[in-house]
């Protein structure tokens, strides 16, 4: 067991898989000599060489198109899109090409690509470098969507994503990069589509993802001081979605809250709310409540961004108000 930062866990997980599969290649901007702008690929160039750890021009369409074309023809690829906001620049490949090719061709091909990308707010970068866009990918059939919250989940879910024959968009949260956690020794492989109960409780279920997980946990500790025993679920993957874990928890607690960084409209929590309303309606003691970013582009100023993204205070207040 070693303590790793979230950012070091990324390189650790990639190295584990590149050692296992000598065909596996990385493509992206500034990932080789520079070690990635978030320092998530430090050391990989030295270990695996410039053929397998490839710097690309600033050409997001070419990065993902090349990743897809190589993956279709025998070379699996981890592609990096530096900021998840830039997925919009190459969304044709994400939404129309890699997601659909398998289905459109009647299963003639697989596209084993992992698109890694830095996601989420809290860095005061403004509206084009701070978005949480996992919901953009969640709504496209053919993609799998992963967003880990801890270093050991980074390693294990990265391995699962790389070994998956389908295209996976892997969201690494910028505000978690410096966070630390234990990572087991040896090969770590996790499973896509399994949520984790990260805190057990009986009064309310709080469903969270990525950077919202530590906030939900801190909020649960504060709620406990007021006698509210909240259960916290880390979804970890949005597609496949572990609806069973959510429904089992809600059946137990009778109340459901989602904590999302997505802007209000069509954030992933809306899907959770819909599933809970449909499948667990008679187990609920009150409405499903979504705690989200308002429907605005994210501002740069600290006071404004902190107000926009769900805070521990906002989670605590919202849960308490709704349970009263």
């Amino acid at each position: 067991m070693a303590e790793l930062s979230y950012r070091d866990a990324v390189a650790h997980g990639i190295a584990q898989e590149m050692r296992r599969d000598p065909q596996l290649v990385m493509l992206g901007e500034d990932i080789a000599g520079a070690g990635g702008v978030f320092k998530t690929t430090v050391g990989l160039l030295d270990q695996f060489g410039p053929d397998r750890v490839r710097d690309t021009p600033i050409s997001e369409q070419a990065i993902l198109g090349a990743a897809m074309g190589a993956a279709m023809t025998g070379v699996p690829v981890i592609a990096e899109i530096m900021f998840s906001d830039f997925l919009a620049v190459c969304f044709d490949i994400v939404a129309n090409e890699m997601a659909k090719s398998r289905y459109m061709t009647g299963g003639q091909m697989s596209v084993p690509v992992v698109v890694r990308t830095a996601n989420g707010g809290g860095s005061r970068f403004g509206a084009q470098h701070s978005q949480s866009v996992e919901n953009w990918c969640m709504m496209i059939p053919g993609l799998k969507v992963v967003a880990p919250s801890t270093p050991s989940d980074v390693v294990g879910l990265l391995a699962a994503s790389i070994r998956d024959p389908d295209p996976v968009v892997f969201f690494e949260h910028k505000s978690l990069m410096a966070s630390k956690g234990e990572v087991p020794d040896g090969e770590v492989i996790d499973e896509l589509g399994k949520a984790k109960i990260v805190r057990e409780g009986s009064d309310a279920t709080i469903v969270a993802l990525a950077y919202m997980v530590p906030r939900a946990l801190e909020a649960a500790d504060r709620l406990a001081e007021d006698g509210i025993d909240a259960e916290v679920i880390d979804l970890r993957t949005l597609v496949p979605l572990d609806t069973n874990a959510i429904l089992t928890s809600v059946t137990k607690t009778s109340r459901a809250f989602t904590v999302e960084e997505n802007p209000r409209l069509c954030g992933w929590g809306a899907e959770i709310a819909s599933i809970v309303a449909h499948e667990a309606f008679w187990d609920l003691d009150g409405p499903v409540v979504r705690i989200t970013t308002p429907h605005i582009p994210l501002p740069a100023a600290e006071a404004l961004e902190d107000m926009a993204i769900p805070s521990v205070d906002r989670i605590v207040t919202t849960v308490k108000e709704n349970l009263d």
Partner: protein
Amino acid sequence: MHLRCTDVQFAFDLVMPGSYIGVMPRRDPVNDPLSSLRSMLEIRRFEEAVEELFSRGLLHGTMHLSIGQEAVAEGVCATLQTGDFITSTHRGHGHTLAHGADPTTMMAELLQKNTGYCRGRGGSMHIADVKNGNLGANGIVAGSMTIAVGAALSQQMIGTDKVVVCFFGDGAANEGAFHESLNLAKVWDLPVVYVCENNQYGMSMSQDRSTAGGSVAARAAAYGMPGETVDGNDVEAVCLASLEAVERARSGGGPTLLECITYRYRGHSKSDRNLYRTQEEIEDWRDNRDPIQRFIGKCVEDGRLSNEQVTAAESAARESLRRAVSEAFAAPDADPADLEGAAYA
């Protein structure tokens, strides 16, 4: 261009002396004109059949016909081997057939049959034939241009001598993906042959109104790769240009951009009433520059084909298409019970 060459190697030596490395093209329009004639006739009859089935209400959805452009598909694919890769476009029936696809299986796809290449999930714009190296038609203009880069990267990394032909239209040359694709292919010197099928209109937008600089081939200079403008209605000229480009790619010489000037007789798709061009212009190309009639005329004149051979090839193409249509009609329909089947592995 009138060639009196006796074999493919000689033909190749004409354009790139001394560097032929021995991967033989699958067809040779110069010395074996019958095989290329059959291939072009197969494409023409296939698309005419599709058009007729559509007009009789027996085939649905949309389609983009390449009638008039057959010499590009044939001239390029003749120079490839099975297993070389192609990426295609929304107007991809010709590329797909010329690269070895089975017309019955293609027709079955268009007729929404479970035996079609994509089991009814793709339709006209998404036919792929991966077994033969066809990575797929594409409904997005320039959508496959960056994918071709990746297919070539994998071949370079694995160390095969396979090449990737990236077909695209004149419209795609003004998409951003065109630039990203050509740039990266040259940066990494990948084995890609870019084939612009310039049929002179992107839907209704004529090339002279849409394309700064006037030439797609000239853009090759910006990427430091060879670029060439070719008479796209001359199957032998296309073949020779493609031979050189394919050979360059195969031997590690990097990408080439070919611009084949051709013309589509039909509208962009079924809804197109040709309001942006004159009937005289269409008839001029159809009656005076048709790639199949030109090829037949030339080969009969110089004695490489007899009238009897041409007649036999024409009836064989008709007969083979008739059989493909009837076999495809008899196949079972796409199965809704397996609706979600291929979305994920």
